[in-house]
């Protein structure tokens, strides 16, 4: 066509400013909901001393009995990190993090080698039970394999034998380092290089555990895989690393959940997730993030700085991110896709809910490199209380991305009149024969809408939750079934008053 077709427009931008905005107090009541996962497990832990230096990194590596290449990887990353500056471009305000005041390794004390779940400390099993993630044989979730990560280490992974029959490897990354070193050496850091950004460099230097998934050629993973991340200590950071490799013509759906206790200090969580999809492979990665968000005055809560990226290396490969972000005091997260393979597809579906003094700066990057690549972005931000919720996204069409297309839709919903919503869409096109389409809207839950639903017999809280669910529908439709129901419930809970 030879014509650059870049459409940027704002549609349906109906900011409904009402003089008498929704019975302010009522809404405040509704969005107040105590955090249900705030308990601390009293368990003996092995912690190393606070602070970060080469010796600490060597100590972590030694504790994990790592091969030389990994220690080198860590030390190199640490050197890079020391030269880097913490990014300040996000629309986030927070107290400077003292990286020397953090414990970089904390693990519950266990027997040296655990051969079966029976040997796992019952307190840990109980913890995950309480979180709704039963790990024991009798109670484990049907048809979902779980890798449970507690602070710095993986506690247990279920359904391993069943998965192994199909050639699927699902284990903690520490185990993978021991048993599948070749795969780790080949792929680790190839999607998110240690030098990528400040937090990725930090993670590369100190990561302690996380999940590893390998789906062999032609295999459709027989069940959903999931990781559940639990932060238990108040003074240690969690730096997990996840690596998923889908070989030719394979597919997998991976779910991730996160919670943490309530502490009045901020805990740093800096994770890296790397996905690799080869020819005709597809990876669906869904997250429900419910880290502790801090209290109403904004004290405490997790600082969540995460780098998630997928590489569509193969032709017609597909990587789809869906996320429901409801927790954390600070969220800095941009799950992205590098679309290299011809006709590869990247997707990003996101719901981010912020309340009280939470701040979220989240979005995606879709980097179109190969020809005929396609990406879809659907982002729904909901801001309540005094929170700040920003969408930040980049769509880039490289010089070889002929016939590529992107569609982005970014909608914000404001609840109350103290919350704020921003949209920062960046578009870079170096290929005239590509299409980028962007739509954005902002709306408020208006008093009139609530009154309309109420005047039809629908309770106030149900009316709010109906409208929020309706607003998020496009994203919920993308989540795996059980997850969609959970996400809907989670949002309703977050927005429900103590009455419910």
């Amino acid at each position: 066509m030879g014509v650059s077709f870049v459409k940027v427009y704002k549609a349906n931008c109906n900011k409904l400013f009402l003089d008498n905005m929704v019975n302010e107090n009522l809404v405040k009541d509704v969005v107040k909901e105590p955090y249900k996962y705030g308990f601390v497990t009293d368990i003996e832990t092995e912690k190393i001393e606070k602070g970060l230096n080469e010796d600490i990194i060597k100590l972590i590596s030694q504790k994990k009995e790592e091969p030389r290449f990994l220690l080198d990887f860590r030390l190199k990353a640490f050197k890079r990190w020391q030269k880097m500056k913490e990014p300040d471009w996000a629309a986030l305000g927070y107290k400077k993090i003292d990286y020397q005041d953090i414990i970089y390794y904390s693990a519950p004390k266990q027997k040296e080698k655990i051969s079966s779940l029976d040997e796992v400390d019952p307190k840990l099993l109980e913890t995950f039970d309480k979180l709704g993630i039963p790990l024991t044989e009798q109670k484990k979730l049907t048809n979902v394999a779980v890798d449970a990560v507690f602070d710095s280490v993986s506690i247990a992974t279920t359904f391993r034998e069943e998965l192994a029959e199909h050639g699927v490897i699902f284990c903690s990354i520490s185990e993978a380092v021991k048993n599948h070193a070749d795969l780790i050496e080949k792929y680790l850091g190839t999607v998110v290089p240690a030098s990528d950004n400040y937090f990725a460099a930090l993670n590369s230097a100190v990561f302690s555990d996380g999940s590893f998934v390998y789906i062999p050629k032609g295999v459709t993973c027989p069940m959903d895989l999931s990781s559940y991340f639990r932060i238990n200590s108040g003074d240690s950071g969690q730096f997990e690393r996840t690596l998923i490799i889908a070989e030719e013509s394979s597919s997998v759906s991976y779910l991730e959940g996160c919670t943490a206790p309530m502490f009045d200090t901020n805990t740093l969580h800096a994770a890296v997730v790397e996905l690799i999809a080869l020819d005709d492979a597809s990876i669906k990665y869904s997250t429900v993030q419910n880290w502790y968000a801090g209290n109403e005055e904004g004290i405490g809560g997790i600082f969540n700085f995460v780098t998630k990226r997928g590489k569509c290396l193969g032709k017609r490969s597909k990587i789809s991110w869906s996320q429901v972000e409801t927790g954390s005091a600070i969220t800095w997260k941009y799950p992205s896709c590098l679309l290299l393979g011809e006709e590869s597809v990247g997707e990003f579906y996101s719901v981010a809910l912020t309340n009280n003094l939470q701040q979220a700066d989240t979005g995606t990057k879709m980097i179109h490199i190969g020809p005929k690549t396609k990406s879809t972005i659907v982002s729904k931000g909901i801001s309540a209380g005094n929170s700040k919720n920003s969408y930040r996204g980049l769509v880039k069409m490289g010089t070889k991305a002929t016939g590529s297309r992107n569609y982005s839709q970014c909608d914000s919903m404001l609840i109350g009149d103290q919350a704020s919503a921003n949209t920062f869409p960046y578009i870079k096109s170096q290929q005239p024969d590509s299409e980028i389409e962007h739509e954005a809207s902002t709306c408020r839950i208006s008093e009139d809408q609530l009154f309309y639903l109420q005047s039809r017999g629908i309770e106030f809280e149900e009316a709010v939750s109906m409208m929020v669910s309706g607003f998020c529908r496009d994203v919920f439709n993308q989540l795996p079934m059980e997850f969609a129901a959970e996400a809907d419930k989670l949002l309703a809970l977050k927005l429900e008053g103590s009455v419910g």
Partner: protein
Amino acid sequence: MQSKMKESDPILEVKNLSASTDNLPILKGVSLTVYPGEIHAIMGRNGCGKSTLSKIIAGHPSYNITNGDIKFLGKNINSLEPEERSQSGIFLGFQYPIEIPGVSNLEFLRVSTNARRKFLNKEELDTFDFEELVKEKLEIVKMDQAFLSRSVNQGFSGGEKKRNEILQMALLEPKIAILDETDSGLDIDALRIVASGIKRISNAQTGIILITHYQRLLDEIKPNYVHVMSDGQIIKTGESDLALELEKKGYEWTDNFIKET
């Protein structure tokens, strides 16, 4: 016939009702009593307080009742939430039905209908049973099933929105229906559909209040009483011929009543 009606207790009694919003008085002592089987029409200039009266009866949170009472089936409802009023059988047909993006019309109608059924101690309907019921009611308003899968009122034409209101009324089977300018902006065919819908739900046990500017709806549905409102008060009450006279003489004619009172 009238005396026979009054043997029963009133459905709605509004007594000397005054109300304001943002400290601005809108209603200044309105009294109105509706008995079972009665149809009342309220007419008056824009801004005279007709819509406000209907919203206050339905429980809109923007208005404060400064004086007087609203009684529904003998009970004071001044402090009831809008949803409680709806569940107990008060229906307000909106002049401008509200669009709710993302919420499916079918689900909305079902949740709403079940809230009313729960109040009436009737069994709540699952999706399948509800679809049966709603199909039947769609006939009344001559609406296509496609309306059910769309978001509530979103992208509906003016006439479609009004018919959706009548559909809701037909599902909720209220004790009293207050229809705020349901006839505005309708073409003749749509007006007939709406009028026949109203007739379908009106019976010896229900009351209806029609807020309107036009005689043409009242040609279809003959009211027992016509009230004329001005500046937050009912200034004249008559029988159905009052509407005809009003249509001939215009609201200027009613200005004289104010001078009389």
